[in-house]
Each structure stands twice: as structure tokens, then as C-alpha cells.
């Protein structure tokens, strides 16, 4: 409160005299809405809208080689080429969808289970919360390297553990078919805690009354979860899916850290983001890469739109 009254005691007769009553101050106060918002908006406009518009333009050209090289306008040719490319493009789409779908499923199910375990206070809660926070803030590239050692087919701990229970060594990241599931595992390890935190925040904000009412009515704990907690928590679940879904679609760091350029020598973990990166900075094929990016962007917008639409439907 002292902060509020302080200026008055300084100069009781003419509050906030001199500098702030100048013409500049009056103008600034009148236009404060845009004065405050404009710098950030301008930054975004210059650094985002302009590049996205440029990407849209490049996708209609045959830009290639150096960024300074001349390019020709070729209309929708790139789109026709990309959409009929069953060699790299469609497998990348499939991997992106599969990766996102699988990690989202496990992260939400495991995240929900762990959040429910943590819901009511208990002794040692602090330590569990620390363990949940650490993977989340760890640098993804370093996390990728860490799992690379653990999953190394020859010296890794993963195969040693399997050996102790009598299962033969697996190729993990080195296998053509096992690489993608292994990267999914890494993503689930790192980001399930994120879902836990979001759902826990949602659970904590729920009121106890519906729970109590259901308990008095004799509902079992599963019935209470299924018919009371889950419906009330659904908006938060959708937020978690939305936030994680956007990032999962765009996963890059752990894929690059574990399999390198092009998602490995057989492109076994090449998602749309990895493919577009390779086209841009390994092959300098800017026209095609821009086309892939625009399609990728549309997929993300579509998924987001579908989810927010569903969220509105569930909110009522």
C-alpha cells in the first residue's frame, strides 16, 4: 500500500509534476496501448511474418544452390513433385504422424497416472517433484547423447540389463526398424513430466465437492475417476495434448542428436522437420524445402484447429 500513497506524500499539491505532464507524456499515455504492444508486434512481424511469406514465395520457385542464386517462378510444380514423392516425403509424413501419435498417447496416459499418484500430499513429495522436473529442463541434445550411450548395442547399459533377464541384445538406435521406436522412448522419457506438471496443476485446481458427493453416493475409485475427475479435467488434458502435440510434431533435437543428418543412413527417423532441415541446409534445395515446410505448417495448423475445436465442444 505504501507504494500507492508514496507519490502523494512527496508533493501533495502537484502530484507527478514536471516530466510526466509534458506533451510527450500526454501523447504517450493516450497511445499507450500501441506504444506498449507495437515493438513486440513489429519484432514478430519482421522476424516471422516476413520469413513465412518468403517461404510461401520460395515454394513456388526452383530456388536451389546458393541463397544468392537466381531462381525462376515455376508455379505449383514443387507441390506436385512433393505430393507424389513416395520415396522421402510420404514416409516422412508417416513417421511424423506415428511419432507424434505414439508419444502423445504414452505421455498422456503415463502423465495422468503419475499425476494421480502425486495428487494427494504425502511424505517425500518434494523429492518426487525434483525427479519430475529434471528431465524436463535438461538440454534435449545432451539427453539424446545420454541415451545414445545407454542404447549403444555393444557397451550400453540397456543391453546389459536385458542380458541379466535373459533377453538377447537389441540394436536399439542402430536398427533400421528399432530406431524410431527408440527415439519415441527418449521423447516419452523427457516429456511425460511436462504432462504430469500440467495435469497436476489441473487436478489441484479442482474442487473437492464433486469427489465427496460421488464418494457418499458409493462410487468406486475407478468410477470417481472415470465419471467425475476425468470430465472435469478434460479441458486441461486438451491443453496438455495441444502443447505437447505441437512440440512433438516439430521434434528435431533428439532425432538429430541420436541419428544425425537425414535421420540416419536409411532415413529411419526422418520426420518432416528433419527432412525440411536437410533439404535446406544439406542439399540447399530451397524451393522444395519451402514446399515441404508449407505443407508441414498446414498440417500443424490443422491439428491445432481440430484440437481447439474439440476443446470448445468439451468446455460446454
Amino acid at each position: 500500500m505504501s507504494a500507492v500513497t508514496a507519490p502523494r506524500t512527496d508533493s501533495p499539491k502537484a502530484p507527478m509534476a514536471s516530466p510526466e505532464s509534458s506533451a510527450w507524456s500526454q501523447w504517450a499515455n493516450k497511445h499507450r496501448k500501441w506504444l506498449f504492444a507495437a515493438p513486440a508486434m513489429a519484432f514478430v512481424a519482421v522476424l516471422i511474418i516476413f520469413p513465412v511469406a518468403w517461404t510461401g514465395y520460395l515454394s513456388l520457385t526452383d530456388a536451389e544452390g546458393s541463397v544468392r542464386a537466381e531462381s525462376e517462378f515455376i508455379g505449383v510444380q514443387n507441390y506436385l513433385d512433393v505430393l507424389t514423392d513416395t520415396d522421402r516425403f510420404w514416409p516422412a509424413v508417416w513417421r511424423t504422424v506415428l511419432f507424434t501419435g505414439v508419444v502423445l498417447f504414452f505421455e498422456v496416459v503415463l502423465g495422468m497416472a503419475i499425476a494421480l499418484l502425486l495428487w494427494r500430499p504425502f511424505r517425500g513429495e518434494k523429492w518426487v517433484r525434483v525427479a519430475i522436473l529434471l528431465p524436463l529442463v535438461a538440454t534435449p541434445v545432451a539427453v539424446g547423447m545420454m541415451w545414445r550411450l545407454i542404447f549403444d548395442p555393444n557397451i550400453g547399459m540397456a543391453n546389459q540389463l536385458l542380458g541379466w533377464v535373459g533377453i538377447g541384445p537389441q540394436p536399439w538406435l542402430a536398427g533400421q526398424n528399432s530406431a524410431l521406436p527408440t527415439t519415441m522412448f527418449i521423447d516419452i522419457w523427457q516429456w511425460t513430466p511436462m504432462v504430469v506438471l500440467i495435469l497436476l496443476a489441473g487436478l489441484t485446481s479442482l474442487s473437492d465437492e464433486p469427489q465427496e458427493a460421488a464418494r457418499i453416493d458409493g462410487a468406486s475409485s475407478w468410477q470417481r475417476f472415470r465419471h467425475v475427475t476425468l470430465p472435469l479435467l478434460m479441458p486441461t488434458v486438451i491443453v496438455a495434448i495441444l502443447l505437447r502435440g505441437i512440440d512433438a510434431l516439430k521434434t528435431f533435437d533428439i532425432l538429430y542428436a541420436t541419428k544425425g543428418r537425414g535421420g540416419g543412413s536409411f532415413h529411419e527417423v526422418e520426420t518432416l522437420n528433419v527432412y525440411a532441415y536437410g533439404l535446406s541446409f544439406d542439399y540447399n534445395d530451397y524451393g522444395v524445402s519451402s514446399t515441404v515446410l508449407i505443407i508441414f505448417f498446414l498440417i500443424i495448423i490443422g491439428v491445432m484447429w481440430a484440437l481447439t475445436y474439440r476443446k470448445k465442444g468439451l468446455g460446454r
Partner: protein
Amino acid sequence: MKPSKPYQVFRTSALVVVVFALMAPLLWMIAASFKTNVDIYDTAKAFVFSPSLKNYETVLQQANYLEFIGNSLWVAFAATTLSLLLGVPAAYSMSRFNMRKSALVVLMARVIPGVSLLVPWYYVFSNLKLVGGFSVLILSHMFVSLPLIVYIMMGYFDGLPTELEEAALVDGLTHIGAFRRITLPLSVPGVATAGILSFIFSWNNFMFALVLSGSDTKTLPVAIFDFVGYASIDWGGLMAAATVVTLPIMLIALFVQKYVVSGLTAGATKG
């Protein structure tokens, strides 16, 4: 009502499994960073080995990591400060004047794939001879931090009652004066949350630095790859490098755990 005994037993054992699954890999990485490469290759020495600081010597002295740590700190600090300067007033305006469409434009930055920004940026900035310098790198990291800060701070300002500001206006403060003297001091926890999250995300950022950093401005996540050769990997050095990158940020996060959690879950419960 107290949870039943069997449930308590189940919960404790389930949580032990969860904590183990989350912590063991990190501890394994740190343990490996103290092993010589000979010990890493020797599965008999998985748990019993004589710790060596050789890998850290390699990382900090030969591989120039002190310089990369400085680069990472500088980029994260500069990007966070600049984004706060731009983002906090913008979030205030967007919250108080209900500028939801403008906010959506800023938040779009969270959705757009980073690669689609890198090609045009690379073109423009290489023509300006700025690629490989700090300015471009900081700008690119602001692309991550600014939307994050606007998002967190909008939620914070939305939850801040307007009565105090109105009282300040009655007391003769201008609108901007009320923002500076009343709202801003009250928003310190929000600004701390936004700043810490922005710092973490900038420190961890990989893709922008991969394209836009030069040999003098390389940040830690890019520098890790120095230990991955085509033919062989220096596992000990790699794990020490990974530890050097992640341990500081994990320790910071622990000290300010409350802020990190509130930032990560911002807006999640408003439905």
C-alpha cells in the same frame, strides 16, 4: 479421508519406480563422465570404477568449453533481457486492452516450424554479413523467448486486479506511471517466472545455433557434437560435455523450482 493402506503401499512402490526411471539415466550419464574410455568399454566396471577427472580436463581445457559456456550465458542472458523489455509491456497492453488477435499473432511463433524461418534469416543476415555473430543468434533466440514471455505475462496480468492501478490514477499518477510504479513491482514473481523459463529455453536451444552460430559464437548444445566423430565417439568426453551443458541448467531449475513449474503450467488450468 485417509488413503487405504494397500493404496499407500502401491503408491509408494509406483513412485519409487517413477523416480528411478527418471533419475537413473541422468545419474548414469554423470557417472560415465567420470570414467575413462577404457572403463566405459569394460562392462565389468559399470558400477565400480576409479573416478577420473580426465574427461573434464579434455572438455574444459582442450575443447574450449569455457568459451562456449560464456557464449551460451551471453546469448541466453541477452535474449531474455531484450525479450522481457519488449514482451512485458506488450503483454500488459494485450491483457488490459483485451488484444486477443494481436496476442495470437505473437503466439503463432510457438507453432511455426523453426526451419521455415532459418532460410530467409540466413539469406538476409548473410547478405548483411551478420551470420556467425552474436546479434543474429540473440535475435533468433528472442523468437523463442518473446512468445513465451508474452504468453506467461498475459496470464499474470489477467490475474492481477485493476483496483490498485485505478487507485493510483486517482492519486494523480499517469497510466504509464501507474504501470511503472504499481503494476510492475507487483509483477516481479511473474517476470521472474517468464525470465527463468526464457533463459532455460534459450540455453537449451539447438537448431537456431546450429545454423546461425560461427566458430566464435558456438553455444554449448552445438559444441557437444565436437565429441562425435564419423569413425568413433569419445564417450567419456561426450558424457562430460553433456553433463557440463545440462547440470548448470538443472541446478538453476532446482533453486527456482516453484517459478519453473508455474511457468511451464501457465494458462493450463484456465480451460
